[in-house]
């Protein structure tokens, strides 16, 4: 990346009023209806929860350095991993990209002044904060020990921890994500700038559209499931407890109806980030644009038909299991399509070696492993052995941390100049990407082996022969933690000391790069008129 004199000049000539300096003081932030400011509020709050969830994760890894339970009691350990899961899933992974980068970029990318419902957007942040406070009260007031899955009847009858409070927090967080999704759907449908047809939308917007579908269709089901759970626990209404006439497996059906698609809420936006970044890194139109776009929608829809693959050993009917299994295999296809298309985009491109490129390559590597290991788990005969072991833990961390967090961090770096108007040191970005990639593999690759050897998840103490791999995993985790801390430092530094960012530091295509860095409050001086396809770096050749 080279910043020419002219670029710097251009940004200095830019209008001095942007969304950041348009009003100061806490009130101008807490009552803002500007989607960009709300995105910043979200960035700050999810960073706090990411740090909290990460703290719990490191406690888990510390404890697992030895086979005995010497750091904390079993009860504490169970609470620690449960809070890690609940915080990471409901308070970091689900809102992360949509509520931050998505909130910032979707209106700009479609050429709108704001989201369709700015007040609802702000409301969603407040609901999120209230949910976060409830969750924090649940932690401080003794914690919750059910795991993030809240399986009945343990959660509804037997657990002695703050299940209702934690379920309430998850319920509210879900409500907040419904509001975000609703805003995106409406904005993408009705607020596109003149000339911005569906097939000119950036793939980031497509993936957010697909994500929003899941948020709207899936989240209410987890909400009602948690309501049923709270009614059972709070009032003794019977729904899932066999002693009250219910069936515990029904809870799993309702829970996974949301919670499996929720994995796609986490991964689809990061796929959108990757599509943007691959194009910019290779300075080339994304290969097979329509296929990448439709594969997002296909993943969103097929994602609703596979939840039973979490229940192959739960005593679910074999025939239902077969149907869920085959559809799960089919979900692999759109993911494969995306990977091949990204690879093809790099072919004969003009590949730049900057931070974005490091994150793109890291993402590709981790997502490949995460996606491919899904094949093991969708195979019914093999899942019997692998279910509820560390193999599953490794698999979903490759997707949700390797894929999603890599996408989130990559996206934050890619659009950091746009969001803050400041540049970060490129070399630091490369180092952090490397640290995350290496640390991640050190942490989670050993867990695949542990899983195949049969170490069950959520184990506080474990047989001795698993120790060496666990130690390896814990050492890797410290490297990974470093990889997450470093960007926090230099990105914060860049806000105060970083050089001013030009409007389009990467020479990328897209409406967001045509406005100033940072953008003005209403995003554009004039509503843009779109006349070309997305990623039109040059004349397109048809094949």
């Amino acid at each position, binding site marked *: 990346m080279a910043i020419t004199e002219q670029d710097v000049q251009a940004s200095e000539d830019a209008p001095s009023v942007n969304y950041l300096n348009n009003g100061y003081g806490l009130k101008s932030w807490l009552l803002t209806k500007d989607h960009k400011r709300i995105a910043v509020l979200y960035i700050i709050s999810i960073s706090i929860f990411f740090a909290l969830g990460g703290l719990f994760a490191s406690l888990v890894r510390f404890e697992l350095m030895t086979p005995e339970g010497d750091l904390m009691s079993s009860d504490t350990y169970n609470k620690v991993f449960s809070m890690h899961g609940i915080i990471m899933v409901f308070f970091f992974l689900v809102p992360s990209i949509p509520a931050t980068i998505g909130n910032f970029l979707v209106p700009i990318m479609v050429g709108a002044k704001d989201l369709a419902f700015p007040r609802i957007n702000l409301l969603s942040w407040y609901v999120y904060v209230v949910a976060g406070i409830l969750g924090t009260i649940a932690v401080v007031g003794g914690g919750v020990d059910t795991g993030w899955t809240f399986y009945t009847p343990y959660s509804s009858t037997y657990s002695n921890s703050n299940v209702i409070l934690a379920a309430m927090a998850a319920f509210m967080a879900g409500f907040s994500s419904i509001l975000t999704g609703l805003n995106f759907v409406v904005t993408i449908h009705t607020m596109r700038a003149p000339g911005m047809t569906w097939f000119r939308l950036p793939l980031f917007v497509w993936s957010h559209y697909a994500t929003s579908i899941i948020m709207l269709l899936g989240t209410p089901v987890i909400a009602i499931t948690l309501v*049923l759970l709270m009614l059972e626990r709070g009032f003794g209404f019977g729904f899932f407890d066999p002693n009250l006439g219910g069936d515990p497996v029904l809870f799993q059906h309702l829970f996974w109806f949301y919670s499996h698609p929720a994995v796609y809420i986490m991964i689809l936006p990061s796929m959108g980030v990757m599509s943007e970044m691959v194009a910019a890194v290779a300075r080339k139109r994304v290969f097979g644009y329509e296929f990448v776009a439709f594969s997002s929608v296909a993943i969103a829809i097929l994602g609703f038909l596979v939840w039973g693959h979490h229940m192959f050993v739960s005593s679910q009917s074999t025939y239902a299991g077969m149907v869920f299994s085959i559809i799960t295999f089919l979900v692999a296809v759109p993911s494969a399509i995306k990977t091949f298309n990204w690879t093809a985009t790099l072919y004969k491109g003009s590949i730049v070696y900057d931070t974005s490129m490091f994150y793109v390559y890291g993402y590709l590597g981790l997502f490949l492993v995460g996606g491919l290991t899904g094949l093991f788990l969708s195979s019914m005969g093999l899942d019997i052995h692998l279910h509820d072991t560390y193999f599953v833990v490794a698999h979903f961390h490759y997707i949700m941390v390797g894929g999603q967090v890599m996408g989130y961090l990559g996206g934050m770096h890619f659009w950091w100049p746009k969001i803050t108007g400041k540049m970060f040191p490129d070399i630091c970005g490369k180092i952090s990407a490397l640290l995350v990639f290496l640390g991640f593999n050190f942490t989670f690759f050993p867990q695949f082996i542990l899983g195949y050897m049969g170490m069950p998840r959520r184990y506080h103490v474990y047989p001795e022969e698993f120790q060496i791999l666990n130690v390896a995993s814990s050492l890797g985790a410290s490297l990974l933690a470093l990889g997450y801390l470093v960007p926090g430092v230099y990105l914060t530094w860049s806000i105060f000391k970083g050089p001013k960012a030009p409007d389009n530091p990467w020479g990328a295509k897209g409406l967001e790069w045509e406005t100033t860095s940072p953008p003005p409050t209403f995003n554009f001086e004039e509503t843009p008129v779109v006349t070309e396809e997305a990623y039109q770096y040059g004349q397109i050749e048809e094949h």
Partner: protein
Amino acid sequence: MADHALHHDHPHGLAHQFEDMPQQKESAVIGMWSFLITEILFFGGFFATYLIYRSYYPEAFFEGSSHLDIPMGAFNTIVLIVSSLTMAMAVHKSHEGNKRGILVYLTLTGILGLTFLVVKYFEYSAKIEYGLVPGLAWHPHGENSPQLALFYSLYFGMTGMHALHMIIGIGLLIWVFVKAAQGTYTAEYNAPVEIFGLYWHFVDIVWIFLFPLLYLLGTQGGGH
């Protein structure tokens, strides 16, 4: 969408992020429908639970249903259908920009909504009196008591959630009423009345399903 994107001289009721009134109205309607989708699936979780347990314990569900009061349920069904009509009329009047018409029909709708809740209150009281509230006041001790309790858990869960939506609906109705009384709504700007109407009709539809599933089930008890 037109590109007269200037922020000044925009029409009454047009928010800054929209270009013109049709875009704003379309957004409001689509937004409400998106929300209703989530509501469909929210109640859907209840209905799925109901369907599954009903198919497992038909006898207990028949028995539980036979203790519900069909005249009260039918009366409430009629109340809600009438309220849907008055709500539709309120929306109709708002399209004409007829302030008085909106106020009259909203008032009728609100009264009918409250009537529904009052009837519901009497039904609930009766159930509490007979000890048919699982977990809190539960008297049956037969061998299918757990399954019977399951039916009543669903009864209270589903009708309770529906009643909560009615209460929220009445709250929203008061807000729309106040705005209408202030003369906010015109023939051009009436989206709030319209989308509130969508909500109200949706709540009515939920009841349209609850009534036969919960109340009418017990009439053929043990028949099959």
